[in-house]
């Protein structure tokens, strides 16, 4: 009876140990540092080359797209008077816009430019909160921002003609 108990305890320990090993090695090989822009600037050690995640707000008017390659985006993010230049290649999320909070994931190069391979923007409900935090009085009507209207001057139609497939 005792033996059996020991046998099962050993088996369980083996499984738990294996899972623990997986977790430990997983953390070691995949973890990235997470900073806000100012925290990153305050770091004494240089982080260039290592994987980083940085949070900040997009500096208004800083978003520039390459005229030849539309998917090549330059912008800077700021937080508490610190600035970081970011280069990103790819489609930007819907909520990527001036002043918006973003989290970029990637690495710094030697010139201090951040090469992002992922670009995340905040979520729907958080975005509502930010608008609230922006000091808008609950009673005030939200402004309709005309500049965000579709820039496209296309002929407006009610629906697209059906195509036969």
């Amino acid at each position, binding site marked *: 009876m005792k033996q059996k108990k020991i046998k099962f305890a050993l088996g369980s320990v083996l499984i738990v140990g294996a899972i623990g090993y997986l977790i430990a090695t*997983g953390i070691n090989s995949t973890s990235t540092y997470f900073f806000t822009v100012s925290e990153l600037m305050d770091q004494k050690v240089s982080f260039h080359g290592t994987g980083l995640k940085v949070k900040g707000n997009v500096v208004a008017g800083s978003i520039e797209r390459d005229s030849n390659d539309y998917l090549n985006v330059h912008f800077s993010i700021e937080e508490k008077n610190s600035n970081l230049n970011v280069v990103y290649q790819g*489609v930007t999320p819907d*909520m990527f816009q001036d002043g918006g909070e973003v989290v970029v994931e990637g690495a710094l190069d030697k010139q201090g430019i951040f090469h992002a391979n992922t670009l995340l923007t905040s979520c729907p409900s958080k975005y509502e909160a930010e608008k609230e935090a922006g000091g808008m009085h609950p009673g005030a009507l939200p402004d309709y921002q005309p500049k965000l209207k579709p*820039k496209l001057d296309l002929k*407006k139609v009610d629906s697209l003609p059906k195509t036969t*497939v």
Partner: protein
Amino acid sequence: MNDIGEFTLMVALVTSIYGTVAYVMAARGNRIDLYLSADKVPLITWGCVMISSIALWKAFFTNDFSLQYVYAYSNIELDYFYKFSSFWGGQKGSLLFWTLILTSYMIVVHFQNRSKNLIVVPYAMAVMLAITVFFLLLLNFSTNPFERIPLPPEDGRGLNPLLQNYWMVIHPPTLYLGYVGFTVPFAFAMAALISKNLDDAWIRLTRKWTVVSWFFLCMGNLFGASWAYVELGWGGYWAWDPVENAAFMPLIIATAYLHSVMIQEKKDMMKVWNMSLVLLTFVMTIFGTFITRSGLIQSVHTFDEATLGYYFLGLLFFIIVVCTALIISRLPLLKSKNELDSFLSREAGFLFNNLLLLGIAFATFWGTIFPIISEAVRGVKITVGPPFYNQVNVPIALALLALIGIGPIIAWRRATWSNLKKNFLKPMMFALVGAAVLFPIVPLSNRSEIYTYIAFVLCIFVLSSMLIEFYKGTMARYASSETVLGALGSLIWNNKRRYGGYTVHIGVVMIYAGIAGSSSYGIHTEKRLKIGETIEIRDYMLRYEKLAAIQATSVKTRIVAQLAVEKNGKRIWTARPEKEFYKGQNQPVSEVDVRSTLASDLYVILADFSEDESATIKVYHNPMVKWLWTGGWVIALGTMVSAWPDRLEQRRRLERLKLQKIVFSPSQE
């Protein structure tokens, strides 16, 4: 009506406090008068919460923007469908919605068990009422949905466009039904501990609740994945975000619990373990709520108002301390009479299944809270992303998949060589043949693809072992029945729990296959296109045909790109990805277009467009995503079968108990 809503919330609070106290006193002092009086509380509380909810719904439907909550989540133009769902669109309403579900469950439990068990049930009701009190306290004093704006604005801010999707209408209620559902087994477990009625009565009373809650949680996760897939436009359905993990962890622990209670029912073992699991499941639902409401962990989608999380943290600590103390003080009563015999037994299979599931839950938990821990210990925030979860959870999940195949066909107690040969030979052969057939077809160039290959082979193994079980059972009955279908039907009908469970397993295998296929073989490409230009992916060629602006409603403008999709020179589909612009919301919403088949999804996004009608198009080719959703429906079918009322069950249990007395005790060697 708003005043009534606010008032009934207060009444609900007072009555539920009274009910908690009265139930406990009635059970302790054996006082029938108090019991009869407390017995009216669930209905009154539910009625009050219901009235309050109706008041809030009415405010939404009548555009009463004097309520801050209605102002923040609705506007005049909002569709009625979404006005209905705006109820749970924000923090305050979702808490009221939670309370509504909780009290609704409570009266169902009340009517189900009123005359059944006069020792356990009052305590269970008291526990449920106490949890209701917590939510009502929040609703009354911290997040009142009936908070007014002194000068009512003319129109509301509107619901975030991203939430205006039908999945977003079904997903939160489904998840809540699951989350809240686990309060019932938890309450009964606590009641069993408090009243020292520690046989399997509480498990039997709540088995259906567990199954149904598990089902809703499972569906809630899948619906959330669907929403992310069709609405967020990043080509994927799961990102291991803390909020997703918050819904995923209770599901995994509940799965472990669902399996391990079978051991207690059949073998009277693992009592402490089951108690701990049901406690842990409930704690995880509260922890999940804490994560989403506290803003403590960086997530792409968290709720607003960071203060509320700490109430949940307080509740969390309170529950953990009380329950741990209760379990420890009842340890002598929770001793099992039987014990495990052999590694090669179904009991051992259940044990390992539990360890693996908890392993996945713990890895997910650790990854989720790692930023906090690293900040506390080392002073820097270190995060882990999807690579961590995949690296850790995929191997564990594969071992688990193998167990899904082994568990149901291995013998109880101790498997003999002949049993193994009889049950495993055929599935193993199927798996080997599958492995040989797949080997030259599938790519095996990196770790992910090798994992996928292993997953496919295991899927074949599990699927064949399940189907053989169905086949054997049907053939055994076929002799006495006229048709094969009739035999299959009566087989399932007379063993609902067993074959319902098998069906759920088949659904799970399909989900495994879908995840494996889509996570390894998916590719994507993006290109800036002028009218008439093409983009290619796998065998498909997409030709950009036109761009149109459609004024859909007075508040919504749709910009639609049209692409002809050709395969082998033949036009097979027209893709129309679009971007929607809502008045008053300063962000456009991408509406992807998906062509979904069991083999693969073609997923087209209009990423951007400009004045010269050129557009940036991103295309994903995601194999086998549809398997996930189909697997979900199979799970739904299986759950329905296994939760269907079964009169035979009781008789079978009694027979088993008789048998147990003869065969298993005393289990000495």
